[in-house]
Structures are given as C-alpha cells and as structure tokens.
C-alpha cells in the first residue's frame, strides 16, 4: 500500500459538495480509496469514444467498461457496465450502446465519461461502512458480489478497529474457506486484508463526511488483493457521523 493522503480525499469530497452532490462518481470514489492507501485495479477515465479506445489499448484486452456519473447509483440497471470487451470493435460498440442506454433510462444523468478497467477475476469480498444513529460509524467485511445479497455473510465492527478486530471479522465469515484458498480458489493474504481494513477504518476517521461506503468487490486474485468497484455516499454536511 502506498500510505494514505487524507487531504487528497477531502479535496474531492469538498468539490462534490460544492456542486451540491451527495454521491461521488465512480472515478472520484476510486481516488478517495486510493488516497486512503487501498490497492486498486488498473483503470483509466475516458471522456470520449476515442479516449476509451486508447485507454483499452493502454490497459490491455480484455477490459471492462463502466459508466462514470454522479447520478447513477446502480450502474447495471441503466446498462452502465460491460464486461469482457476483447477488441477495439467491442469497446466502440459498447461505448455507443452504453451512452444510448444511460441517456434513455436516466435522461437527466450527468455523464463524466466511462471507466476502462482491467478485467480482474477472483474471489469477491466486500468492505463497507455505514452510520448507525446510536453507535456511529460501522465497518463491515464479508463475502462480496452475489454472496452479500443472498447470504449476508458479513461481520460488523465500530470504527476505529484494531488489528485483532480485523482478524476476528475474518474469522466470523462462514465462507472464509473460499478466500483461504479452498478448492483452488485464490488464497488471500490475510495480513493484507488486515492492512486494508485498518486503512479503511483510519481513512473513515479522517473523512467524517462519508455516510456510506461500499467497496464491492474487493477482489482476491492470484496476484494479490485489489479494490475493483466503489460507492461513496456523503452525509449531511452539518451532521458528520459520530465516532
């Protein structure tokens, strides 16, 4: 990890606030996480069809394309995610289809561009945060992707957490054998998960404006762990989450 830079994240959040927004777009959310010191997969923001093609060449095929808009909460629901694009033709067609679909389904959405991202395969984990009215900022860890929706196999703690809290969170996950490398699944470096959880906990302490956070998926790959997708919701400016 690269260490954290709280000011970088604060600048992004302040700029979003200045525009009256309560959600960061995907690009901003990724940068906030990056400033917290999280390992991210490789991705480039492209503002046009041409830029998208160039970005795909730069990242290397196959790539993923995601809509970058501060107004789109659920990207897949507006046709804002295309995976496994394996050549320039795919990227061009995906770009046209995505713009048409988003404009049709959310005509008022502001579109900053698309994210061209490397295609990362592995075990999907999730790290999240929400604000409890009584206990303040919570941190969540568990199995991500489809698992979080169906099995709710997650563990919660209050922020800030300590090293052994992070380890206990991992122990509480019923499906932990999967990221421990069962049946040929990639084996996660648990120390790296601990470092990531501590980085998020510390990062959240420094960003009281963040009301809710999803890092989903946090992907366990053969080459290490990277954050692949993120959502950051800002709270009311005058009511930061208590810690």
């Amino acid at each position, binding site marked *: 990890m690269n260490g954290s830079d709280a000011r970088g994240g604060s600048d992004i959040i302040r700029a979003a606030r200045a525009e009256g927004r309560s959600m960061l777009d995907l690009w901003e959310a990724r940068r906030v996480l990056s400033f917290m010191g999280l390992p991210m997969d490789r991705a480039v923001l492209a503002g046009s069809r041409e830029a998208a093609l160039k970005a795909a060449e730069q990242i290397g095929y196959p790539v993923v394309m995601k809509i970058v808009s501060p107004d789109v909460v659920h990207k897949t629901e507006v046709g804002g995610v295309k995976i496994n694009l394996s050549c320039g033709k795919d990227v061009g067609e995906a770009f046209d289809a995505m713009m048409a679909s988003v404009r049709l389904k959310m005509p008022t959405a502001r579109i900053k561009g698309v994210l061209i991202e490397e295609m990362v395969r592995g075990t999907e984990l999730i790290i999240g945060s*929400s604000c*409890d*009215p009584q206990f*303040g900022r919570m941190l969540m860890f568990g199995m991500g992707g489809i698992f979080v929706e169906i099995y709710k196999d997650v563990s919660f703690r*209050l922020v800030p957490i300590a090293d052994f809290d992070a380890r206990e969170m991992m122990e509480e996950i019923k499906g932990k054998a999967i990221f421990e490398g069962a049946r040929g699944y990639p084996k996660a470096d648990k120390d790296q998960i601990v470092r990531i959880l501590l980085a998020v906990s510390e990062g959240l302490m420094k960003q009281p404006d963040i009301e*809710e956070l999803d890092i989903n998926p946090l992907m366990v790959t053969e080459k290490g762990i990277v954050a692949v997708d993120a959502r950051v919701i800002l709270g009311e400016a005058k009511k930061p989450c208590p810690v």
Partner: protein
Amino acid sequence: MDRPGRHPLHDFFQPESVAVIGASSKPGKVGYAIMSNLVLGAEGQLGGGFRGKVYPVNPAGGEIFRHRAYRKVGDIPDRVDLAVIAVPAAGVLDVMEECAAKGIKAVILISSGFSESGSDGKARERLAVERAHGHGMRLLGPNCLGVINTTNRLNTTFAKKAPPRGPISFVSQSGAICTSVIEYSSEEYMGFANFVSIGNKCDLDDADIIEYYAQDPETRCISIYMESAKGGRRFYDALRKVVSRKPVVILKAGRTAIGAKAASSHTGALAGSDIAYDAAIREAGAIRARTMLELFDFSRALAYQPPVMGDGIAILSNAGGPAVIAADVAQDLGLPLSRLTDETIGKIDGVCPPTWNHGNPVDVIGDADLARYTAVLDILINAPEVHGIITIVGPQAVMDLGDVARAIVEMSGTTSKPFCASMVGVVSQASENYLDEHGIPEMEVPERPVRAMKALYHRGLYLRRRGLG
C-alpha cells in the same frame, strides 16, 4: 458524594444512612415493602436488614417498623446519604427539592408515572433531571426497584426475596427480570454482590453502573439486561474500559426500528440496529447471551471459574450419549476440543479398560467407579494440551454422586484450569448442589456446561489476544 477517594456513585451502594420518603406501615404498599426489606431484610437475606441507619419519612409521622417516622426529610436530625423516593409521581419534584435542601446528593426514584407513561410523564421526568443537575444531585430511576448490595444488606427494592451473596453484579433495565433473577438465583447458588434496576435511566444509566462495578472489589463478573442504551457510543466506550478489568455478559433484547431512510448501499441495508449492538458488544470484548438461561450460565461460569487460557478443552464422561451431545455442541459453538497426546492416551490406557474410546470426549465407560473416574480426571488436569474440563456424570449404581462431586471439587482446587459440570438429569439433589456451592457451575443437561465453558474460552481469548493473560 464526591468525597475524595470515593467513587461518584458510592452513596447509591454504600450509604451510611437512607431516608425512605413514602415509607408506610400498611402492608401491601410499596413504602411498606421497602421499609421491610431495609429494616428486617428480604426473604433469603442472611443477617437481617441494612447495616446503616434508616429514616422513614411520612407526613403522618408516628412509627414505622419501630423507627420514628419524620414528617419531612428536613426534620431528620442527622446526615442522610441516600434518599429513596416512593411517593406518587405528582409529589416527586417537591420531595426532590426537600432532599436538595437537606444536602442529599444521591436519589433513587422508585415511583412510576414518568417517561414510560405519556407526555405529562415525559415532561415531569425532564424537569426532575434538570432540577437534580441544578442541585448536583444524581438520580437512579424513575420507575425502578433501585439497589441491592448484599455486603451491607442495603435493599431499596420492594422485591419479595433477596439474592444470595456472591461475586456477580447485575444491572437490569427491567424490574421484572430482576425479580425473576432473584428467584432463580436462590435455587441455583448464583450469588450476587450488587443488583440494580435502573428503570427509565433518566440520569444514571448502564454505563455509569458498570463503571462502578468495575472498581467494586466484591464483583468478579458483571451481567447486564438491556433493551436499549441511552447513548450507544457512550455505552460502548464504558463497556470497552470495563471489560478490560472484568468479564461482562449482556442480554440485549428487543430491536429498535431500522432507520426510515432508505439505504442506498449494501452496507446500509445490512446494518440494522441489532447488528450495531452486536458489533459493539463483540468489539468491546463482552459476551452476548441470547437467552435468560445463557445469561445465568455464562455469569455463573465467569464469576466462579477462571478463563480458558489455551486452545482445547476436555470432556470427561462415564456416559456415552451425553458426551456425544456435549461434543456436538462444542463443535457447533467453535469451542475447540483438545487433541489428546500419545502420552495422555497412554496414561489413560493404564487406568481404563482397553475398550475406552481413545479420544476426546474421554468416555471412561458406564461401569466406571470413583477410582477410575478420578484417576482419568487427574490425568486430564495434568495434561498440557487440556485447558479446561467439562465433567459429565451419568447417574449409575457403582459410583456415588456425592462422592464424585466431592472429588471433583477437591481436584479442581489443585489447578487453574476451569471446570464446568453436568450430573445428567439430576435436579436439586445434594450432590449437584455441592458442586454449585463450591463454585463449579453444574447443569442438569450436558449442553449447558459446554456453553458456559465457551464463555470462559471467549474470556480467555480476549485476555490472550490483548496480552492480558
């Protein structure tokens, strides 16, 4: 209050003198029951009534329980450390003013008719807190039973019985849970140091009470029944500090509504209020009980037995079926059973018939006599891979239950490894009572000592992970 070297809540637990406002000589009245408990002692309260002075206050004057009754608090000639107010809600604020004028800083409001009963009550409660704080006074209650301290026999409640003396201190949001726990404790040899019913928690709340318990030398385990914390973070911060000194068991019941705001993230949708409580309890290192029975069993184990300071416990049994049940439950709970070393197995071979199961649970077979059972128990006590022992005894004709109970108690005294026990199916007999009386939690079904041992394992993990062991 606030005398140097004294805890701010000292006078709620260790007053030298108590005034009961609303004291009565009419049986059936709350003010009668409180006086009876203070002066004579409640049923089961060994040694009689409160060791300090008791001043009944009643506008009619006269005598109550052979104590001169004063018409007003202000008429009491001596210093009063604690006021117990049991007058109708409408009169409480005036009485509080009289207490303030008398210099009383600790007040228990037994009376109901406050925030639990509509908007008038809410307003009255708010006013009571404002006035109390204006006078530097602390309030316990209202709508509560108050305090039992079994050491000085302070008992401000109108409960029928008092719990036996012992190392557990309990705080409950519900008065009915308090009286039920008292009933149960006298049957099960579960002894209490302090007992607090906090009612509406208008001023003092769970966080304050457990901080007092943490420094109370009589308390070895703190038990909490709660429905909601007054301030989540405040409670968590207090809990965290307290758990570093003493084990805490919490039965948290009831779930408040999930915030009305539609959550727009996965995390928000998954994080309900109960999850937040659960996270707070786990992170603080306290132990959550899901049922009243677990609250009892965990509290008894933690109060009377040391924590499990390693990974692995042994189950010793002369009964096959109950041993298998116990092993299943251990597996379910994630309580690790010791893998017995060849050395230990060799030693057991020396005292058991060859047909013993050569594993853990250690089944010494139904025909085991006292000599065989205790020989194996001795081997397990001395086995380095064993960090706690569950002794299961199925009643049979070749081993006297009283003998085995005495042997277990005697041998448990030779080790720092914790013991929990089951005499399967045996209820309220001298043998099982003997175990309980000597601090070995005994339950009549084999799964319960396993759960109790899990609580001791949890406490051990907490201490080991923080380098406190």
